[in-house]
């Protein structure tokens, strides 16, 4: 396929008891693209997402990120490899401030251990300063620098989303995976989110996006994969997918003969 494939998963299968949630799913995300994953409810989008990010263990499949194969056996290993994610129902560290949440995102790219913590030698102090600066810069990037010291739990819904995205960006991901980032947002918030995602893409981070808002997705995504009943039924640009009879059938039902 393309010379510049960032993430390539092939032949992914996942079964929950009697339910075959994913069957032979293939997905290839091009570097610098926003890649959408859509499908009707229960199509397996979130399962696919969880498998890629290591939260659910796949029964089968090959996983390759930036030309290197990785094993999605543990979420922390996937984060280290370069995929960061957000959650459908926002999962912030509620008692920590917005800034501290983003600082936690730096964990995987920093190294100080017990001795560094206790003795705070110059290297440890330097790293801590870097962590704060990086986190503060990210909060500014997503537009909520003024809320840095607020407790995450008390932020508004839209701002919590932004903190979550900033926290994921703090891990310096190659691929940022967002699970329904626009859920529950009003039109203004959606358009702000859209601008933010495009800015992130233009800075060189690829995105994988699950979203129900098809209108938002069509304008935003460079490529879209459509899942139904755990299988890929279509793949292509927004325009191609829209025309695809299988997709229309999946969303609207088959026309009576």
């Amino acid at each position: 396929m393309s010379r510049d494939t960032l993430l390539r998963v092939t032949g992914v299968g996942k079964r929950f008891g009697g339910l075959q949630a994913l069957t032979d799913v293939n997905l290839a995300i091009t570097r610098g693209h926003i890649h959408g994953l859509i499908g009707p409810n229960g199509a397996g989008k979130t399962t696919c997402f969880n498998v890629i990010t290591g939260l659910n263990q796949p029964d089968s499949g090959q996983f390759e990120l930036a030309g290197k194969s990785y094993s999605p056996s543990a979420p922390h290993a996937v984060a280290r490899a370069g995929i960061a994610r957000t959650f459908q129902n926002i999962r912030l560290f509620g008692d920590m401030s917005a800034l501290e949440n983003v600082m936690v995102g730096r964990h995987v790219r920093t190294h100080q251990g017990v001795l560094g913590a206790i003795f705070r030698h110059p290297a440890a102090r330097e790293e801590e300063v870097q962590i704060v600066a990086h986190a503060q810069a990210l909060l500014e990037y997503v537009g909520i620098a003024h809320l840095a010291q607020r407790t995450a739990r008390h932020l508004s819904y839209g701002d919590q989303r932004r903190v979550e995205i900033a926290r994921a960006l703090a891990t310096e991901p190659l691929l940022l995976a967002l699970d329904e980032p626009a859920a529950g947002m009003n039109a203004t918030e959606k358009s702000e989110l859209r601008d933010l995602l495009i800015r992130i893409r233009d800075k060189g981070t690829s995105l994988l996006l699950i979203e129900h808002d098809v209108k938002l997705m069509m304008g935003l995504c460079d490529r879209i994969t459509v899942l139904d009943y755990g299988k890929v039924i279509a793949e292509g640009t927004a325009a191609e997918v829209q025309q695809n009879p299988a997709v229309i059938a999946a969303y609207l039902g088959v026309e009576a003969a």
Partner: protein
Amino acid sequence: MNTHHSPLRIIFFALLLLVFPVVASQFGNSWVRIIDIALLYIMLALGLNIVVGFAGLLDLGYIAFFAIGAYLAGLLASPQFAVVIESLQMEYPTAGDWLLQLAGEAVAAQGIHWSVWVIIPLAALVAGIFGALLGAPTLKLRGDYLAIVTLGFGEIIRIFMNNLNGPVNITNGPQGINLIDPVRIGGVSLAGEAGSGGVVQVAGWSMPSVNAYYYLFLLLCMLTVFMSQRLQHSRLGRAWIAIREDEIAAKAMGIHVRNMKLLAFAMGAAFGGVAGAMFGAFQGFISPESFTLTESIAVLAMVVLGGIGHIPGVILGAVLLAALPEILRHTVEPIQMALFGHVWIEAEVLRQLLYGLALVLIMLVRPAGLWPSPRQEDRPLAGSDTQTGAA
């Protein structure tokens, strides 16, 4: 960085801490002794605070690490090791002779008497290893289930100590280990030299033994506070708190949850081990009775009552719960005798009554503890005191 105490207040507070035993011992050594024990409890509570407060792992068997530290001091700084060799020779002559060869005649006659400088790091290390070992099987458990399993582990350690007097006598069973060496620093015994009546001479100053221990424990406590504080405001502390807040999100952020939990168990246990070794040396005698489930719960109550996860709160909780019962014991009955000429309520009864009342009241009125972490809304906003937001 996080607090802005005036230097004057700090100096005043330091002076207060330094002068306290000198004043208190005028009214009898038992007052200083109470505070000595309270200081040990502060160390314990701060250690448990790392596990329960930071990492959010409800540990009901924490006193086991206190026991391990105490028994380590008991074995390595008392005549007990001579008993161990003798008993091993009786039971398994070959192994006993081998151990005798290894340890030497002097040890077989007098036991091991290592210096406190060896005992303290060793207690931290051994307790830390046990902390990680006992933590390992519990990694997938949360909340109530974790509490029950750790409770079991705590009891297992105590029962071991109670029964390891046969076939080979290691811990002397329920009788406990006696004649543990007092702490000796630079040739000065903190228990006072024999025949001095418990008076310690340091550089021309003389003070009661309990005062000398007070200064040692105060120093260790300050070290513990310092280390907890530094750990809390570090990459590791943030990772622990992240795990406490949301384990799945913490994993997704690349935190190696298993290792961080083990580290929390080990660090917490290490503080408990040091406190235990000091307890052994201070009392000179230890037995399994000191390490019951009630003690685990008492330490947990200190953490919860004071303000879980907040270091000053935990210290307050430890001081209150450790000192109050002792103060009651020393005051309630004499006061009643003086007032009525008769003891109406025994101190122990009153202690339990107040203890229960305090816990119920705290749960009702201040569920986050007496002195919880300041709400983050109280902090100044980033943009108001620095210009980072506008840069």
